């Protein structure tokens, strides 16, 4: 079985570290990471991952803007995006889904449960 390829885009080093280890070692996924929105966009175009975990609140370009740019390009338009946010209000989560995310993961997430959350919404 081919491992799911995941790109994590988050400016927070601790969140990335936990997510990378969790998806690699618990989820047995193939993981790449970007510490900024602009690098994340470049990596998405280059790698064409199966799913992108996209932080909502980042300096410079925020998650919704990254998603809009991904949707503008044919090579990234159909990549599923899961928003990751520390704003857990239901209205905010609904708003993010309406922007086109397939799901929303709230921070902090359980380090051992993240792969399950991702697998459930992607496959």
């Amino acid at each position, binding site marked *: 079985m081919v491992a799911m390829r995941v790109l994590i885009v988050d400016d*927070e*080093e*601790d*969140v990335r*570290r*936990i997510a990378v*280890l*969790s998806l*690699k*070692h*618990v989820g047995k996924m193939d993981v790449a990471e970007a510490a900024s929105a602009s690098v994340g966009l470049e990596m998405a175009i280059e790698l064409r991952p199966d799913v992108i975990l996209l932080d909502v*609140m980042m*300096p410079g370009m925020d998650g919704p803007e990254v998603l809009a740019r991904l949707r503008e390009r044919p090579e990234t338009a159909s990549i599923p995006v899961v928003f990751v946010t*520390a704003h857990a209000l239901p209205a905010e989560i609904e708003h993010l889904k309406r922007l086109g995310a397939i799901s929303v993961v709230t*921070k*902090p997430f*359980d*380090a*051992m*449960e993240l792969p399950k959350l991702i697998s459930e919404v992607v496959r």
Partner: protein
Amino acid sequence: MNGGEDSRHGDAVLDETTIESLRELGRRSGTDLVSEIVELFLRIAPERVNAIRSGVDRSDTDAVERAAHALKSSAGNLGATALASSCALLETEARAGHADGMRRHFASIESELARVVPALERLAGRTPTGLTHDGGADVS
């Protein structure tokens, strides 16, 4: 690691379930993940606290909102739930543009940090020294 006493009781500074998940992930990945994330927190938190303090002093609600959001996330990763809640309240006040509320909640963050930082230091096997670099929680 010896974080049990900080996370075992009802008024725990750190949530034991969160710490145990990190421990388990550390075991699975062959890393000392808890210590690593604690060290990251202790390195990053002073900058964030200073950014909040400076933003509160200048009534810069955008700066306070960003820094409080980031500190909330870091605190949540380590199960420092009361600190994360104080950060969330500050973030909300900043978004609403309430300068007085920002000052009040920043004071709560400072007192929470005075409990959280020594607990994290013990968890990582460090001698408690408090946040450095004028991070606002020197508990020594």
